[in-house]
């Protein structure tokens, strides 16, 4: 078999505690990798993408399997929670439909049963489908090492194509989302030439909050994917909407400004022009849907 020829052997461990996992991450340093759903890392290992000695299966660690929501603390998704647990969860469906949008369109059913948003974030693909949703929702990555915990805003987590901001010895434990505010809504959209099972040509996540009259935008976060070396928070476009009335012109304005931070490439999936156009179209449509959700339509 193909795997026989090119997948080098390594040590495997499935620790039952976070402490034990951190011990491995610490002692093997850059030669240790975490295994959650395996949908990216096993493919990359077959392609000899990294020199790895220890694969730490994190699926038996309680903290990484936790999925919890309270109105006051918001949502916490363990780094090993697969997409299917996210989109089948009624509290997430109710409070974070944008996260369901993203988790539901990653791969096919076979992939969704294994793939995690923690892995999607750590894989740091420029086109990673949950990442713009995480950025828009104001998510924070909770990472841990033997030195203790720290938190990284989702928009700062990816530092380059396929490169995350974790230091040697660190493990992503969970992703935390603030509780949804009153009159808030969010949406995630991806463009692919097929209906399913493809990598984004461009994707956009947006989240916004309206005033109590549901006429004016009080805050907004627009995030873009597959149009730069990492998924991006479109700060200027987001700020443009603050205090603005809901109107086609204003949504169009934000979508045009969002294009300014996009620096897409031409590749087999799309051209620079197509991707720029998509940023505009997807941003506007995602804003419209987020507004509908914020209004409770």
């Amino acid at each position, binding site marked *: *078999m*193909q*795997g*026989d020829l090119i*997948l*080098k*052997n*390594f*040590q*495997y461990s*499935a620790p039952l505690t976070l402490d034990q996992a951190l011990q491995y991450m610490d002692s093997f340093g850059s030669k240790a990798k975490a*295994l959650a*759903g*395996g*949908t990216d890392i*096993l*493919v990359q*290992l*077959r392609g000899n993408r990294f020199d790895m000695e220890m*694969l730490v*299966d994190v*699926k038996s660690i309680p903290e990484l399997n936790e999925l919890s929501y309270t109105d006051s603390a918001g949502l916490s998704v363990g780094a090993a929670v697969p997409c*299917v647990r996210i989109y089948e969860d009624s509290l997430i469906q109710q409070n974070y439909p944008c996260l369901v949008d993203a988790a539901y369109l990653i*791969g*096919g*059913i*076979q*992939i969704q*049963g*294994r793939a995690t948003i923690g892995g999607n974030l750590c894989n740091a693909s420029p086109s990673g489908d949950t990442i713009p949703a995480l950025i828009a929702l104001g998510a924070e990555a909770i990472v841990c090492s033997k030195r203790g915990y720290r938190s990284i805003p989702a928009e700062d987590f990816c530092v380059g194509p396929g490169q995350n901001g974790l230091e040697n010895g660190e493990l992503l434990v969970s992703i935390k989302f603030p509780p949804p505010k009153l009159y808030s809504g969010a949406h995630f959209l991806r463009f692919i030439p097929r*209906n*399913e*099972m493809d990598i984004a040509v461009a994707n956009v996540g947006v989240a916004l909050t309206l005033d109590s009259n549901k006429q004016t935008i009080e805050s907004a976060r627009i995030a873009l994917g597959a149009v730069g070396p990492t998924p991006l928070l479109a700060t200027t476009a987001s700020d443009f909407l603050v205090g603005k009335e809901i109107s086609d012109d204003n949504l169009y304005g934000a979508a045009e400004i969002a294009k300014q931070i996009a620096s897409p490439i031409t590749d087999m999936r799309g051209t620079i022009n197509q991707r720029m156009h998509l940023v505009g179209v997807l941003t506007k449509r995602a804003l419209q849907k987020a507004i509908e959700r914020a209004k409770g339509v």
Partner: protein
Amino acid sequence: MNEKIHVKTKINDDYVEFLCEARQSLLEVLRDVLDMTGTKEGCNDGNCGACTVILDGRIVDSCLVLAVEVSGKEIITIEGVANVDKLHPIQQAFLEQAALQCGICTPGFIVASKALLDRESNVDEGRIRHWLAGNLCRCTGYDKIVRAVMAAQENTKI
């Protein structure tokens, strides 16, 4: 010689033990260690679904599962779908609807379809097509496959 790991699992309701290397996928162990060659290798990177098996009730691509991960879990493969002397209604429908040509994708489609019909009732064409999006067929063009799954659903209604 790489170190072998001892794994105890349950495959098609039988307790199974095997030795494998950490790097070996479940697909590789099913086919090359356990001689269960019903599960097929297509792309070996999670795109085609030919190697679909049911792992603790959920379909997965067995090429993207390490064999060491299935310790203590339950697996259903294509070999566990039929009864001893009778095809599963989905298998029967695939034959009757001519929903296969070369056959490489067929075990994956049948296992995935079984998982769907075991979980959900009254699934429509759209749901079947969405559920089977992770299974690729390069011969039939999907129409006959979808029709076979719909026919199997009808045939299993009491």
